[in-house]
């Protein structure tokens, strides 16, 4: 369904977003193959991300903790991972640790509400591409980054 939704994105809508130019540069077509794994225990947030990505025509899968994310990664390929840092069962740091051992990994965007400076350093050092504080980051920015990835 989300795939279809992305196809339905009108030209005008595309022009309203700040990513318009970037999309043009990439050739003016959307990569239907980009798959996003959302690792987030907070249901309202994961749902919002899912909705937004679907609206942008990006396929996404939601898992509620790190362990399930790793399990899923073992079976499927994902291009991008939106990783919450604070989760039950296995938190984002542990996931990053495991990812470091893996050969093929998705681009990781860490999403956190902790906003501890040290955390940011640490997360980036462990292989995440970007670190976003959820409350300070508009969804549109996340989508833009995903598209760039």
């Amino acid at each position, binding site marked *: 369904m989300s795939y279809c939704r992305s196809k339905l994105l009108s030209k005008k809508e595309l022009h*309203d977003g700040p990513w318009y130019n970037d999309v043009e540069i990439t050739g003016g077509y959307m990569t239907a193959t980009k798959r996003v794994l959302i690792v987030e225990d*907070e249901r*309202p*947030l994961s749902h*919002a*991300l899912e*909705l*937004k990505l679907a*609206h942008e025509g990006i396929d996404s899968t939601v898992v509620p903790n790190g362990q399930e994310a790793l399990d899923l990664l073992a079976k499927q390929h994902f291009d991008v991972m939106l990783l919450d840092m*604070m989760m039950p069962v296995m938190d984002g740091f542990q996931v990053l640790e495991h990812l470091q051992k893996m050969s093929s990994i998705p681009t990781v965007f860490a999403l*956190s*509400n*902790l*906003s*501890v*400076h*040290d955390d940011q350093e640490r997360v980036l050092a462990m292989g995440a591409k970007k670190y976003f*504080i*959820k*409350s*300070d980051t*508009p*969804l*549109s920015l996340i989508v833009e980054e995903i598209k760039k990835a």
Partner: protein
Amino acid sequence: MALNAGNTGNTVTVEDNDLIFVTLRGPQSGETIKTLRETLTREGALLHAQGRKVRILIDVVALKFADANSSSRIEGRKLLAELLFDAMGIVGSTQLLTLAMYLTRIARPGLNVRYFKHRSDARAWLRNEKKPKTARPISGIVFGVAIIIIGVLALLGWQFSNAYLRGFLPNLRPMNPVAAVGLLAVGYGFICYWRGTLGQLRITGACGVVLGVAALLPLHINYLLYGDRLTKIGPHTHIAQSAAICLVLMGIVGLIARRRDRWVRPAEYAAAGVIGVLALVNIFGQLYAHDFIYSLSNNFVMALNLAVAFAIAAAGIVVLALNRDVGNVLGRVTRIGWLFFAALLFIQIATYGMWNEAIIRNENASQQAFTKQAGDLADIVKEQIRGYSEVLYGFRGFFLSSTYVSQGDFNTYYKSLDLATNLPGLRSMSFISAVKTKDLPAFVRLRQQDNTLYPGGNPTFAIHSQTSAPLHYIATYSSDPNSQSSLGLDVTSIPGRTDVYNSAIALNSSFASDTVTFLKTATTPAEKGFFITIPVRSEAEQNNLGVVNVSFNYATFFPTLFNQRGLQNLNVVVKEDDGGTIYQFKNTHGDLTLATTLTVPIVNNNWHMYLQAPNNFGLSKTQTYLPLIILVSGQVLSVLFLAIFLVQLRGRRQALELADSATIDLQSERNNVLEQHEKDEAILGGIGEGLIVFNRHGNVERVNAAAQRFLGYDETELVGKNFSNVLVATNSETGHEIPRAKRPAAQALEGHKAIATKMSYTRKNGQRFPVDLNVAPVSLGGKVIGAIEVFRDITHEYELDKAKSEFVSLASHQLRTPLSAINWYAEMLVNGDAGKLKKEQAEYLREIYEGNQRMVELVNSLLDVSRLELGRMANQPVPTDMSEVVESIEKELTTAIVGKKLAFSKYITPHMAPVIGDSKQLRMIVQNLLSNATKYTPVKGSVKVVLRRATVKEVLHAGLPHERPYLFFSVQDNGYGIPEEQAVHIFEKLFRANNVRKLDVEGTGLGLYIVKKVVESMGGRVWFDSVENIGTTFYVVLPFKTTKQKGIT
């Protein structure tokens, strides 16, 4: 340990056994001694503070004072004295007079200072340290005073009242003064024993030995002192050799008194035994068995007083031997006093000796002169008489040369002899003719016709007082013109004369008469005298012509004769054989100790000359007064010496007073140090924080109770050990052990600066605990001598801190999660992701979205504040271009600026150096100030931003050190301003001024609080000027290189 000892020659060494050796070497000055003493006081106080007993030993090697200026030299000596009193002992030599003087002070009992010959002696003494007894045996003073009294009496008896003493005890002999002086010395020795200064016994002992031996020897000085005068009252062998032997023995006892060898006590008993026996023998010899003892040897006769003195001394020595452990055997010597004593004694003895010698020489000289004078006088008389005889024989020849000698011939011949000049004392010269009765008429006629003298002869010449003797002696001629009337006198009429003439004629030689009284003449009185007669006999005719007579009157004869010789200072009496005085001559009186009698033959008689003269006969005035001059000079010299000695004594007393006060000062100084030490102990013990003191090598010197409690170690486990060996420090964050060089204590000792940090220590049981720690170096004279570390266990704070951090994280997460949800869903709605919204819906939704955005900002600000307060604000200094920051914020605020139509102006110095600081924090400063300015400035207002280098004035205004470069940043607006009464609260957390609260609800009251915190944490200052409704200017001054702090508190 090398310490500052004033100069290069001096050293101060502190030994492990707490002995401090001070070596004074080479030239000293007040300054060097002062430095030395300060060092000693400090070291002593340090040892005292550690509860150790300090023992300072002064070692003197060629000490002298080098100050050119006398007052500083005196100051140096005073300080040296204080130094000595500070010391417990002295090692080595004490060659300085000053030092010797001060030593007497130290010799005082109770002042615990000792003298050691070598350092090893001091160390050995320390090992067997005993408390010296300071008891004063009463026997010492009793015996000492008794012996001295007897010694003084002996001296007085010898000089002044010997006769009285002899009258009191007839057998008593005067004491040899040398022995008496020796007795004084020995008596003083006993007093030394009482005072506990047995060291002086060596001196008194030496005096005793020397004077005793001197008394034994037949020395000239002895002879002079007791010789001549004393031999008159007794045999001069009266010096009791036994007494001298006693004196020698006592001297030896004094010499060995300080020794502690095993043989000393038996030797003392033996000496006392011999002295006692000798003394007793003499006492009994004097009182009961004098004759017997005396018969053994004259030398055994001894003065009773001396015998008694030695008996007492013997008893005293026994007591001394019994109590020889009593008293401070480590006495000190007042050499200066003894030097003066010896000098005085020497002067006195020398004076008396020289005086005596001079007297004896004078006596000998005057005796000689007197004897010579007497002989001379006798010779003069003899010579005179011989001269007369010759004249008489000349006359005889004159008379015999012709048959008739006329009156004129006689006078002419007489005058030619000039006898009045050559033979003084001549009364007259006459010719007495011997005429038989039958020849008288012819004789008279011949005389009457003699006209050789008077023209017409001498018709009045007649015989008168004619006797009936067969032979008449008729005075015929006379040299005396006044006795012409006696011519013609029949001398046989005068009794005695005829016998003289007859004797002369019978012997046919000259003959002298006894004393006769010459007849009174017209001009001469009847006076006594004598005459000499010589017969004139013609051998050829066997006829006696007469006699020639020369007469003398004594009154003229002797004075003329003697006065010519200029006799002075002499009495002369001349007597005849029958004892009649014929002449006396006295021109002196008084004590005439010189006398002699000479017999002078006068032709057939003898004259006896008795001569007397005083004992200075024939001496010059200089010679006469020489003994007196010697005596007076000697006494004057003694008085001078005494005066010098008294001056020295006074100086010493002053030094002692000074030393007393110095000692008191030192004691109180020590007490203060002790008291301070106790106080310090109490204070340190009471401190709740751990305290560790390191020495310069990092060895632990002390730890307080709290530190022991924190670390779990005992004081004994830590003190003396290096901190890196006993205290394990780890990084609280990483858990890694901190290497020694990076340890705060090491850095403080090396880097000379105080360090404050947090780390973890490990307890004895292995448990780690976080500490907040401050280490500061301790400097003395620019050199780091150690460090003091204060720390506290911050486990609790650490946990609390952690809990707070966790709370902040949690709050951050829990608050932001719902805010994120609202944000994102609102965003999607606004964007029309869920379908196109009505105008009202879109408007309401925007309100929700913006409200939520403000909530997010508030939460972020609150989190910033929390981090600031917890010190958890990240701080990563990087070069930050402030103009870029300003521009970026301006961009962010464009909507508001444009919306409110604000005039925004910037004055930025181009190409300014970047600020080294955390870019986020720097941004916070600019962001808060600029957003405030735009927020609180009404529509069409103006905002002015200035960014440049700060001037010195501004830096000083900010109260910052102006050596570093600073950035100046100001934001000026013409907004609502800050009410004056609320200005003081403007930087407070959650404070908002009344005026803006009414106008606007957007503010959080956190912005300025954050600005101030951040600016100050970076080492800068923020302040403002504001007038309500006119505007506000905020000023920020920041160092280009901001202070890096682990966190902001």
